[in-house]
């Protein structure tokens, strides 16, 4: 079975349509990621509706390509104009922009590319070798275990996102309420519809995501226009690029940062924008020349880029195995998987193993594509940042309207998109994190159904969560996390994040 699945995965490498879709996604992702203000989440959310009209073996590689491309693309404006294209590239800007100012912009861009590719490759191998065995273990999970697993994910995401646990909990609670709108799947009773028939089918995920991530981002960027001036640094392409010796010297840092990114990516709530800082800080502590960090260190660029790129494949592990998205992009990907009839969870590998191994093969091959495409295109990509906002953002708004309607062919979805935009903008302004809302919205149906199944099995007794070993262990972990978060919120003040996009 496994051999067959791997053989199918390898056969995907010869499918020109799947490869072309991955390459197109990669190119689109790099372009979007390179545009300051257009985030990877925005790219995936706006372009996801395109894939609903494609076969899964074409649509999903397209989205995976966008995901990878956008995370890498964010480093281009971080280096050339000291403005991270995505929040995940914030740490790259420190040393990347400093190198560009010294005339070593090409070296910084190439090191960023090499580190991204190496980290992504390593994390993809982790995904391949961890996901399938984990899924075979997860098949043995019962409904009480899943109830606690979903609760664990919600507690984690509420606790670690944003500037305070209270704001994270606010977003999670709001997400739970939004998910409950519509007809109850078991009894058919109408919940929180307020007499609006259009709400009987629930609140459509993709239009809400487009509003919250794409339109609200446009509003935030519009606010910044005129306030912040972009300082384009001329990147001289005639100077020498990175040498083998420089890559060799940075390899230990890249490997360490990839490990950090892969580990954090597999945990719910800790996305690329956190791992890049942790990887950067760790690299600085372990460096032989820590004083060069912040002044233009190639090692710093490598650490930040490896740290954020390793998150992408790793975040797919909980998404594919348990149906729990690790961050907002995987939340959108989860929606795309479901739209294609691929229901993430332990049975996914059993039912669609060959397709999944095809996706893994695509993930590996896109790394090679990224390296070849990136090295060839660096000299042109740096000019993308010059597109005027007056052309860029109205185009994004036009795509938001078209993409939103394409999901269900419903006019009502435009109103969902607008409400999402206003809510997303207000949440960004008040520093209330958006990812917990989206992830809670996705996890609530599973949590509700597994809780009901558990209680039916136990005749309404909550003891089932204590007597089942996995559920009991997770319950203890949840209690420990809540105690830790409570202690932290009483003793420390977290800095404001105000970085909602990835």
């Amino acid at each position, binding site marked *: 079975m496994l051999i067959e699945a791997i053989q199918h995965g390898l056969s995907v490498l010869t499918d020109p349509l799947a490869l072309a879709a991955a390459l197109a996604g990669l190119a689109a992702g790099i372009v979007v990621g390179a545009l300051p203000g257009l985030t990877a989440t925005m790219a995936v959310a706006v372009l996801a509706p395109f894939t609903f009209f494609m076969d899964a073996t074409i649509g999903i590689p397209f989205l995976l390509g966008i995901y990878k491309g956008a995370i890498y693309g964010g480093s281009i404006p971080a280096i050339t104009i000291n403005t991270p294209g995505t929040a995940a590239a914030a740490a790259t800007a420190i040393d990347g922009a400093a190198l560009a100012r010294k005339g070593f912009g090409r070296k910084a861009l190439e090191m960023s590319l090499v580190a991204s590719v190496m980290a992504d490759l390593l994390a993809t191998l982790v995904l391949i070798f961890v996901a399938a065995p984990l899924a075979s273990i997860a098949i043995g999970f019962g409904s009480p275990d899943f109830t606690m697993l979903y609760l664990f994910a919600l507690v984690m995401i509420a606790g670690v996102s944003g500037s305070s646990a209270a704001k994270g909990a*606010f977003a999670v609670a709001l997400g739970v309420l939004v998910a409950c709108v519509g007809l109850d799947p078991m*009894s058919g009773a109408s919940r929180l519809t307020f007499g609006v028939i259009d709400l009987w089918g629930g609140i459509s995920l993709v239009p809400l995501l487009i509003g919250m991530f794409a339109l609200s981002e446009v509003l935030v960027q519009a606010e910044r*226009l005129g306030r912040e001036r972009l300082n384009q640094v001329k990147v001289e392409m005639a100077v020498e690029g990175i040498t083998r010796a420089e890559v060799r010297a940075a390899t230990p840092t890249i490997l360490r940062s990839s490990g950090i990114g892969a580990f954090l990516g597999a945990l719910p709530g800790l996305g690329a924008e956190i791992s890049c800082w942790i990887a950067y800080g760790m690299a600085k502590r372990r460096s032989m020349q820590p004083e060069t960090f912040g002044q233009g260190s190639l090692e710093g660029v490598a650490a930040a880029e490896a740290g954020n790129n390793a998150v992408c494949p790793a975040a797919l592990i909980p998404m594919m195995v348990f149906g729990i998205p690790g961050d907002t992009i995987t939340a959108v990907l989860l929606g795309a998987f479901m739209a294609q009839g691929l229901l993430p969870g332990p049975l996914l590998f059993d039912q669609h193993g060959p397709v999944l191994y095809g996706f893994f093969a695509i993930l590996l091959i896109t790394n090679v594509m990224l390296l070849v495409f990136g090295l060839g295109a660096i000299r042109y990509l740096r000019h993308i940042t010059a597109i005027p906002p*007056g052309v860029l953002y109205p185009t994004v708004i036009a795509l938001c309207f078209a993409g939103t309607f394409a999901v269900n062919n419903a006019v009502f979805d435009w109103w969902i998109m607008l409400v999402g935009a206003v809510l997303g903008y207000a949440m960004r302004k008040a520093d209330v994190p958006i990812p917990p809302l989206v992830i809670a919205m996705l996890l609530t149906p599973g949590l509700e159904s597994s809780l009901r199944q558990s209680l039916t099995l136990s005749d309404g007794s909550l003891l089932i969560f204590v007597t089942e070993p996995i559920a009991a262990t997770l319950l203890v972990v949840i209690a420990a996390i809540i105690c830790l978060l409570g202690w932290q919120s009483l003793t420390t003040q977290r800095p404001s994040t105000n970085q909602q996009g990835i």
Partner: protein
Amino acid sequence: MPARLADLLFCLLGLGTALAAALSLFGGPRGAGIGALADMTSPAFFPAVGAIALAVASLAIVARSFSGPAAAALENPGLRPLLILVVVFVMALLIGQIGFLETLIIGLLVLPPVFGMRDLRLILPTAATVPLAVYLLFERVLLVRFPDGVIF
């Protein structure tokens, strides 16, 4: 806007949403009644828990905001985001009346100046090509049927 005022507004939004949810779930002749909270398999249980959690989290936000040192004031957003929201709102209303392509063309004529672009040599080609490209891609390639317009 002071950060504390923003926190207070979010608290009011959360409490209002929680109250509306509670009234919808438990109030009225078809409401589940407050007794539904005791039955964890009831359809009203989960939204009720969500509403309670939202109310508690809203109060916690305000309590935390007013108990510690005041956070930095929020930057004044200016008029631009509000203008864009108004344009987008009007576009959503117009699509049903005059059609998708026509609305996008109008939107792309109005929006660039809001983003600070005054050069007609850029605005006009953008307003002509972007809506048409989006329309053709979705309607002709992806076969999405947008609402019919007065011309297209």
